[in-house]
């Protein structure tokens, strides 16, 4: 009897091991404030994927923002540990990441998948701009956005103003809508604690983007200086926006929804949040350019990267999970929940998205803004260049330097930062 018991328990044990197949573990690092509603959505998707693929374990890692995810990936790899398999980082970080060999190319994984090439072709070209470097594919668009002007349509109508069609109109509208020197309401608020991105549409609207290629920046171009001056004028001349640098990325959307500012320049990614909290009709449009009738915007947002140092199984599972996340229905769902612009053509054809467009016309306006968008600042040594540019933009906004001085200094120091790459 004893022997039988021993034998049967051994058999059960072996069976148990056979059933519990070895798991491939992958993780996704996602940049979001610890409290964002999007985390619930991602967690749900991770669960769905694991249910459909029991031999893969997916862990989600949430860090505060894009720089935090990037630093975490860098530090992990340098520390000799495994970085999260997939990471959502800025599309523009591609040069630094590839040079430092922190990310793997996706070419071989695309080639292995049956419809891989078609899959990659389905992404909006505007959003693939930073995915290629040295003739290889490095990232896929995940949450892509554009900078737009949100305006309080009810307020505009009540004040008999039409949405601005030029810098001049924008400034004058903002001036007219400023109440009590800004204490009750500002005409416009532009977040400037990390100013380069929300500033780019102004430069583009003046006629020139702030950079030409990965080793050439044009900070002291005449048009860029004019754009800096326009921002300064908005507070000094038109008194329509708070003076100086405003750390208001998070609070400007709240202020807008609460009616404390008539217009803000912000990301399409805030659309869903704003629509939820604003009790008035919200207007969305690309940022007016200097000349009447022109529009300007800049792309932004994060791509999905595959970090270096993983096994073949992990890479395969990660790519599969990435495809799962980028399925047209999920992309449409994600857009609906956040306001990020769907990055795939197939997603724009889904019923989910079409329904959302029907009920939320602003979503179509956001997509329309994309037509006027030029690429986000993307150069080698991006951290250093951005730091320099941000610093001097802030110096100009804070009136410690004139626009010309600041941009000349920015050009000089950025050229130094890029010298090693020429």
């Amino acid at each position, binding site marked *: 009897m004893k022997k039988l018991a021993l034998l049967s328990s051994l058999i059960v044990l072996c069976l148990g091991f056979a059933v519990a197949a070895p798991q491939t573990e992958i993780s996704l690092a996602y940049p979001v404030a*610890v409290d964002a509603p999007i985390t619930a959505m991602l967690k749900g998707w991770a669960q769905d994927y694991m249910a459909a693929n029991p031999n893969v374990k997916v862990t989600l890692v949430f860090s505060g923002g894009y720089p935090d995810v990037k630093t975490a990936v860098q530090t992990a790899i*340098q520390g000799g540990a495994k970085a999260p398999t997939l990471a959502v980082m800025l599309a523009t970080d591609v040069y630094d990441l590839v040079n430092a060999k922190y990310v793997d190319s996706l070419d071989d994984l695309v080639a292995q998948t049956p419809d891989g090439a078609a899959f990659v072709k389905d992404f909006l070209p505007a959003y693939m701009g930073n995915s290629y470097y040295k003739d290889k594919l490095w990232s896929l668009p995940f949450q892509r956005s554009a900078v737009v002007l949100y305006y309080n349509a009810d307020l505009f109508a009540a004040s008999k103003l039409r949405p601005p069609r030029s810098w001049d109109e924008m400034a004058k509208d903002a001036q007219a809508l400023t109440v009590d020197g800004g204490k009750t309401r500002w005409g416009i608020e532009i977040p400037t604690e990390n100013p380069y991105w929300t500033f780019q549409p102004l430069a583009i609207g003046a006629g020139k983007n702030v950079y030409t290629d990965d080793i050439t920046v044009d900070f002291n171009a005449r048009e860029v200086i004019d754009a800096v001056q326009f921002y300064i004028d908005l507070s000094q001349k038109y008194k329509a926006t708070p003076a100086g640098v405003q750390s208001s990325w998070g609070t400007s959307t709240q202020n807008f929804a609460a009616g404390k500012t008539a217009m803000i320049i912000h990301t399409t990614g805030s659309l869903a949040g704003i629509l939820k909290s604003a009790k008035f009709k919200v207007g969305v449009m690309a940022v007016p350019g200097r000349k009447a009738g022109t529009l300007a915007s800049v792309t932004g947002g994060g791509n999905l990267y595959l970090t270096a140092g993983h096994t073949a199984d992990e890479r395969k599972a990660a790519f599969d999970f990435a495809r799962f996340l980028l399925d047209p229905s999920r992309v449409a769902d994600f857009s609906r929940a956040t306001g990020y612009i769907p990055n795939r053509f197939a997603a724009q054809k889904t019923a989910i998205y079409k329904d959302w467009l029907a009920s939320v016309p602003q979503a179509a306006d956001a997509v329309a803004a994309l037509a006027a968008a030029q690429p986000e600042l993307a150069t080698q040594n991006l951290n250093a260049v951005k730091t320099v540019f941000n610093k001097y933009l802030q110096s100009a906004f804070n009136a410690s330097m004139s626009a010309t001085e600041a941009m000349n200094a920015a050009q000089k120091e950025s050229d130094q930062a890029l010298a090693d790459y020429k």
Partner: protein
Amino acid sequence: MRAKPLAAARFAVLAALAALMLTPLVWALLASFRPPDVPFALGSVFFASRFSLANYAKALALAPFAHYFLNTVLQVTTIICAQLFTASLAAYAFARWRFPVDRLLFTVILLQMMIPTAALLVQNFSTIRFLGLYDTIPGIALPFFGSAFATFLLRQSFLGLPRDLADAAAIDGCRWDQELWHLYLPNAKPALAAIVLSSLSFHWNDFLWPLVVTQSDAARPLTAGLVRFTQMGEIGAQWGLLSAATMIVTVPLFIVFLVFQRQFVEGYLASGLK
């Protein structure tokens, strides 16, 4: 007597100053109990009429504070135990005997007091990585296992042992470890307490080094965990939530401090000798 009004004035001034000093902490405490749906506004200082634990519930759900707490306790305990061990041995040797190059060795050890470990974080990061201890609690703790401060303090204490006690031990023919354990250490209680509390305070509150040498929740302590709540992203400031998280991180050590006030103070005074 002119003393009375002066004493009253002094009392009043102190009360005002103390109130001012307490304001930030108290206000954060109040904010942590504010119902999340009551927005902050000008003039609205207190938490309206309702008292809510929602922020705490959310903070606890969003980050594994219990786990961070455990990590912190493990890290600090490991460091303190290791420091007491290595410092006791070294201090005993330096206090008990004169031996060739003892001054040199002592000076080398004292070097650590002149150079804060924080300044060496880049190089120590490489060393920890080399040892394969990145993202582990031993990785956080290891650089602190040798403590110049503890060695210095204990040596002072051991040197202060009354001569007759030392002589008696010598006559009795005690072995070195018996001497250390039964004679020197028991008489060094104030120094030991100072070392424990000083280390406890410093390492419990250490932020940058654990941040740099860990990446996952598995090994992170309370301080690194708290900083996640300050990264606002697109949501904007969630002050109630942040305050609740801050309270969760701050209160444990604070309670220990309230209980062991006098010893803490003495520990701080001793650390000032550095």
